[in-house]
């Protein structure tokens, strides 16, 4: 507050001095405050990126968020650029940059500037703390003015928070965005909205104009940085990431009462007990009083995220954890963004040239031959780009897969574990259990009896033991990944970080798909420990979730001794493993088959 005051005070002094022509003799503390603001803007400017399409046809703005060159911008800025772009910083240098990941629905893209490990970066703020009336400023490249890459700065006020802007076209949706009267013009797209202390609170990307043309009229929108924080690891995966949906729809029945007016029976919300006509009370920690508020909150989450939901029925309140399904079918998403990428972000003036239909007879050369080709990818970009359908840049995904998996294998000495595993241990009441696996089948003995699963045919009917959701199959697929590796397992990709457990701890998620089922390997981001497995046999069923703890040594390998197996809302078993034998430690033993 003091800062706003002092800004105001300074303003008044300046104003009155100018108005009267009297000599300026401002108080030292006012000069200090001015100097502070100059410093804030200088720091913010250093992290601001002027983005240009490689052929110089278009561009926008961006902001650096890590010293190794990762920068945020808008999807609609990078879409026309393809894989590579040129990025200028206010040191006057032009850097090559490569697209990393895109979020077409949220209009966010992550790029990496290449050539330095010490890029200046913006400090990330907390956009949920931003209030109406807070001061903010934009830094960017409006009208592509930044010939020398010095950003334009515009100061203004936060006009609204938690705003929702309806989808433009087919994809784009700004949920929970910040509204500001700091100038956001064409070319500011992808640039930063900073708070008065120079912390990054949003990425500018849209404005309201209507009959007022295409220049700022005091109403710009920035994607909140808290939304982007959830997406950053997903964007670093090199994927085309999707937003979340609910599997049910709501309507505002009366003020403050939002009820479910339709629900799919195969969605997670239904399995967690939500029904038609239930009242939605809280979603992801936010009170829900209007249908719009739910839409606003939902739009900031990536597909697969897990959020707490509180709902009410007949006076009773229920709290559940909800797994959010995707908004789009993955193939549909890829097609939609390809359509969008073919359109330039700022259409060139005049009519687009049309190819001559009778080109054989025409004395004129084919117009397409006269158009400049997209330049070849710069060398620095070539080594960091791999085109694979469904990915913005598969190279980054592959890097993350390798980092996670190789570190996991190496750290825990898991090579050569083979496909014959025999595990034994105790249940909480000191009863014994035993798990035996071969490459083709598995079985589990419990006091309640013996159950088995075959791994040779369709997996979806082999989800034993009953009530576990597929414990044996999950262990089989884990074993398969260790045995065959990333290359031969089947389809493998790094997804990003997802919340897990009651505290919503963020874990790195590696996904493997084999035999029509999906297995997720969940790693601790800090030390790379594999702390969980999730087997998802189908979209419409609950996963088998295994949480690992108490890593111990079994025959020279570091493996989890405590397993908690959960299926749906129920704990299936708590296992304490005390014996773990594999092919690797008994070379000649064929054991495991009965």
């Amino acid at each position, binding site marked *: *507050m003091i800062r*706003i*005051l002092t800004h*105001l*005070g300074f*303003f*008044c*002094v300046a*104003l*009155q*001095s100018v*108005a*009267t022509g*009297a*000599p300026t*003799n401002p*108080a030292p503390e*006012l000069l200090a405050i001015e100097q502070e603001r100059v410093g804030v803007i200088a720091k913010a400017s250093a992290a601001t990126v002027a983005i240009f399409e490689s052929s110089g046809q278009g561009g926008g703005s961006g902001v650096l968020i890590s010293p190794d060159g990762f920068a945020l911008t808008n999807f609609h800025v990078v879409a026309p650029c393809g894989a590579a772009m040129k990025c200028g910083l206010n040191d006057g240098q032009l850097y090559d940059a490569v697209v990393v990941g895109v979020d077409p629905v949220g209009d966010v893209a992550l790029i990496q500037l290449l050539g330095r490990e010490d890029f200046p970066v913006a400090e990330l703020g907390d956009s949920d703390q931003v*209030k*109406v*009336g*807070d001061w903010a400023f934009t830094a960017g490249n409006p009208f592509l003015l930044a010939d020398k890459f010095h950003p334009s700065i515009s100061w*203004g*006020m*936060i*006009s*609204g928070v*938690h*705003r*929702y802007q309806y989808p433009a076209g087919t994809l784009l949706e700004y949920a929970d965005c910040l*509204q500001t*009267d700091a100038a956001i013009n064409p070319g500011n797209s992808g640039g930063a909205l900073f708070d008065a202390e120079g912390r990054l609170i949003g990425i500018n990307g849209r404005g*309201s104009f*209507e*009959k*007022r043309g295409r220049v*700022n*009229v*005091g*109403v710009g929108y920035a994607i909140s940085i808290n939304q982007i924080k959830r997406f950053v690891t997903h964007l670093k995966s090199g994927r085309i990431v999707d937003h979340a949906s609910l599997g049910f729809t709501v309507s*505002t029945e009366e*003020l*403050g009462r939002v009820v479910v007016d339709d629900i799919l029976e195969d969605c997670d919300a239904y399995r967690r007990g939500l029904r038609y006509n239930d009242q939605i009370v809280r979603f992801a920690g936010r009170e829900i*009083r*209007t249908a*719009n*508020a739910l839409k606003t909150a939902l739009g900031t989450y990536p597909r697969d995220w897990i959020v707490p939901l509180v709902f009410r029925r007949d006076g009773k309140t229920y709290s559940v954890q909800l797994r959010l399904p995707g908004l789009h079918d993955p193939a549909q998403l890829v097609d939609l963004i390809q359509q969008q990428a073919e359109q330039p972000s700022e259409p060139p003036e005049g009519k687009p040239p049309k190819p001559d239909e009778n080109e054989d007879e025409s004395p004129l050369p084919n117009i397409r031959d006269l158009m400049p080709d997209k330049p070849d990818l710069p060398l620095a970009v070539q080594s960091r780009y791999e085109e694979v359908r469904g990915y913005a840049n598969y190279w980054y995904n592959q890097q993350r897969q390798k980092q996670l998996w190789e570190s996991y294998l190496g750290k825990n000495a898991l090579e050569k574990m083979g496909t014959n595993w025999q595990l034994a241990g105790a249940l909480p009441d000191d009863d014994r259990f035993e798990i035996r696996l071969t490459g083709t089948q598995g079985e589990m003995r419990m006091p309640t009896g013996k159950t088995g699963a075959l791994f040779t045919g369709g997996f979806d009917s082999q989800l034993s033991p009953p009530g576990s959701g597929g414990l044996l199959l999950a262990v089989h697929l884990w074993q398969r990944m260790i045995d065959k590796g990333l290359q031969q397992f089947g389809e493998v990709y790094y997804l990003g970080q997802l919340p897990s457990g009651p505290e919503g701890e963020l874990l790195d998620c590696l996904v493997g798909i084999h035999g029509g089922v999906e297995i997720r390997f969940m790693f601790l981001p800090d030390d790379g420990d594999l702390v969980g497995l999730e087997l998802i046999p189908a979209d419409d069923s609950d996963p088998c979730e295994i949480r690992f703890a108490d890593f111990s040594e079994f025959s020279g390998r570091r493996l989890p001794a405590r397993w908690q197996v959960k299926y749906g809302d129920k704990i299936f078993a708590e296992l304490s493993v005390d014996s773990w034998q594999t092919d690797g430690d008994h070379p000649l033993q064929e054991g495991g088959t009965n």
Partner: protein
Amino acid sequence: MILPKKLTTLLATLVVMSVVDMFSCAAETPLSDVIRSAQTKVVKIFGAGGLKQLEAYQTGILISPSGHVLTARSYVLDTDDLAIVLDDGRSFKPEYLGSDPIRELALLKLPIEDESFPHFDLQNQATAQVGDRVLALSNLYGIATGDEPVSVLQGAITAIAPLDARRGAFATVYRDNVYVVDAYANNPGAAGGALVDWQGRLLGLLGKEVKSRVTGTWLNYALPTASFSSSVNELLAGHDTTWEPPSQLPEQSLTTERLGMRLVPDVLPITPPYLDAVRTGSPAEKAGLRADDLIVFVGGRQIASCRALLEELTYHDEREEIEVSLLRDGELVVVTLQAEGEHAEE
């Protein structure tokens, strides 16, 4: 040279005082709290429109604890299905009390009696000077939905000058001073919003979207509170709820036909009572009425619509002399009409 020196000292003292002043007053109320409080006095209005470039929404301000809402008189209000949404998200269908055709204002009333609403006090007027910092609160672009607070833009007063503006090809009626601001205050849907100072006091009402007649650019301005407060008070008084129609109507009432004037077709719930035509030789013509005149008052009572005019005439005997106030080219003209007409005069 002595005088300027003294002046400088005086100014310096003033500057220090103003800085101290700013510190002290804002220390009492942080700007975000001022804004939040002002937002609760601004309402969103949803009504007619929705076609291209005709937004079906605008803004209004609460001006009494009993729920009187002041807004811009516009096509948005031309519907039976008008809704006022308060800051807390509650939606009400208001009563239309009347309008000020010169300033293009309308007065609405929430259908609630037993509640005290936060409101701007028109009696306790604040004014501003060029250079003062201001906030514009409005439902511009209809951004705020449901219980979302209205948008806030900031800027300074850049001029206090007569409004010289047009809407489409037509010059606007109001020609007096307005606050011109450098915030983009008058975007679509902003009309009827509040211009307040940094203490949250009402300085003016955001006007409708108009362009400068000189430059053709969109203007950002507000009508100063002083320019409309007495008119609004008259509207409030004119809607004295103690007024009741006479229990007995005259046997032969006045009609537009008897007066020799025809109103525009009554196509809207609140069609403004414009004259479509005046019959040659009629009392209306003799009194100087013309086509396109807008009738504002009849016999001292405000007339908001064609319907209200026809109803008002039924209270008057055909031989009665009535005073009619009308709006023509931005000027208020008062005439006396008598159906038998020999002595009609301007």
